[in-house]
């Protein structure tokens, strides 16, 4: 009956109101004169960051994802060779109880992909690759669960739903992190690889969001709470969208131009540390902080 309205009515609730700020700030900076640097590029220059530093930051996120998915699907985490010399300990993950065939396939696929990403980045970085940081899934998920309103005993390893919610937590962040990092990378080969990894994270996120949406009201509400938390942790700019908006599916988080969001490394750290604001160097999933040069929000 209102099918002709199906197209115009969606996503506008989010983008109309909230991307005004984005368009005014981020987009104006990013799309300014060719000679102008974005704030992130200026930050990179100021801190003397190299491509290696950027890739090592991405490696920390891949360690986190790989440990989560590999353990959830096999009961064991990364082997010593994949974690690097003097790697930090990982705790709080275990084999996940997954029942639906498509969720199991998703978990297996993503575990392989994230493991490959660790392997690829470590290979690309060679002797400059940072080791795995200390990772605490129990503390991380407990903090997220409590802050998002899912309960401090939120356990991603007990059901399809919780596993997908945890996956949802990570994947969109990966997408925005790689997009934010893309303009910082000078070497064209690294850039090409980062874009390819960026897209794979988006495939994962599209799968997780579609699966959660199909699971119904409880799953949609849970995902929307996590989305709201991420958006709160990373500062005032709107960089996140839930999977149901104004009663409609919102599988793709994007701005008014149909373009995905970017997060700076600092905004990404705000989320994985579970702490808003600047000057934070550890917390949440990384109780001793990330390894490498990019450690502080």
């Amino acid at each position, binding site marked *: 009956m*209102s*099918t002709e*309205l*199906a*197209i*115009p009515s969606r*996503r*506008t609730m989010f*983008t*109309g109101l909230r991307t005004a700020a984005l*368009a*005014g700030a981020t*987009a*104006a900076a*990013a*799309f300014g*004169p*060719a000679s102008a640097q*974005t704030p992130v*590029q200026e930050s990179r220059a100021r801190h003397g960051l190299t491509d290696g530093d950027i890739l090592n930051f991405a490696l920390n996120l891949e360690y986190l994802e790989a440990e989560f998915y590999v353990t959830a699907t096999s009961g064991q985490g990364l082997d010593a060779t994949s974690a690097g010399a003097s790697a930090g300990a990982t705790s709080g993950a275990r084999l996940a109880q997954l029942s639906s065939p498509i969720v199991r*396939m*998703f978990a297996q*696929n993503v575990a*392989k992909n994230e493991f*490959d990403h660790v*392997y*690829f980045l470590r290979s690309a970085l060679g002797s400059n690759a940072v080791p795995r940081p200390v990772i605490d899934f129990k503390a991380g998920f407990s903090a997220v669960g409590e802050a998002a309103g899912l309960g401090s005993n939120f356990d991603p390893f007990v059901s399809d739903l919780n596993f997908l919610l945890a996956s949802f937590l990570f994947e969109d962040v990966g*997408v925005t992190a790689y*997009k934010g990092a*893309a*303009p910082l990378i000078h070497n064209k080969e690294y850039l*090409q*690889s980062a*874009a*390819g990894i*960026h*897209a*794979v994270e*988006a*495939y*994962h*996120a*599209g*799968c997780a*969001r*579609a699966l959660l*949406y*199909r699971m119904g009201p409880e799953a949609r509400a849970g995902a929307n709470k996590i989305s709201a938390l991420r958006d709160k942790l990373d500062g005032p700019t709107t960089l996140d969208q839930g999977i149901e908006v104004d009663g*409609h*599916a919102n*599988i*793709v*988080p*994007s*701005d*008014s*131009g*149909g*373009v*995905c969001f970017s997060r700076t490394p600092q905004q990404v750290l705000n989320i994985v540390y579970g702490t808003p604001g600047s000057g934070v160097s550890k917390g949440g999933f990384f109780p001793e902080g990330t390894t490498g040069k990019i450690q502080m929000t």
Partner: protein
Amino acid sequence: MLLSGKAMLSRRHTVRAMSAAVLGAGMSACATNPVPRIIPQGLGLALTPEPLTDPAVFNFALNLEYLEAEYYLRGVTGEGLERADLGPAPKGVTGGRKVRFQNPEIADMMAEVASDERSHVRFLRRAISGTPLVASSRPAIDLEASFKAAGAAAGLGDNFDPFADEDSFLLGAFVFEDVGVTAYNGAVKLLSQKNLLEAAAGILAVEAYHGGMIRTLLHTKGPDVVAKADKIAAARDSLDGPVTTEELPSLSLAPSDQFSRAFKRTPQQVLNVVYLSPDKGVHRGGFFPESINGVVRHT
């Protein structure tokens, strides 16, 4: 409902106008830069020797977005893009009609994709219009004979009609989505400006979200539908030359190479797929019976 939807839509127009206009200004600055871009060797651009500027890359992408937008909009609403989105000399669209979706959730997701693809058309048109280059008008698009030919090539029979029902529409969507991902991924190295690169990466990701969504939905339809999608992926892979550019949907929800990086296609390989021709030097066919618009037109 109607009022709030329209009010929000117009608000959204304003925001888009802002960001894309500034983007256009950025590209304009690039276009006056005297340093020409050199085409890397091995891209097979022999028939189009002009340097591929950043706006030209966006114009190439615009053709693909027209195709996707027309497919989804027609399937979801029965109507295509509005006149204002088509450029000064648009060509026609053959085929495409409103699909009778059985599952309202799937209908809703397809409407979201339609909205995204339309946003991409508008975003790219705006961005290009800020440069000396003219944003390409919509080329002639075929959504009927093309799908029949694609279906036959993939082994789905001689009468594949993606608008016949929900499952078919998902399979038709699957023909496009991964191609969009590989096209934008292949454009990454062609873009010289960081701000455009970031925008392209953002569209790349949206296409990949769509790709993940479509693969997931195909799996919810059962093994027979997934087997058909496998055939489509195999057909795409055989059209674009010997290099592997596909991972079958039955095996993967995130098609990627040995390091789990998304595949990429050159503009020529993309054209091989949408022209439905494996040959070199072809400038039309398949979904674009009269060619695409812009400097890159040949396989």
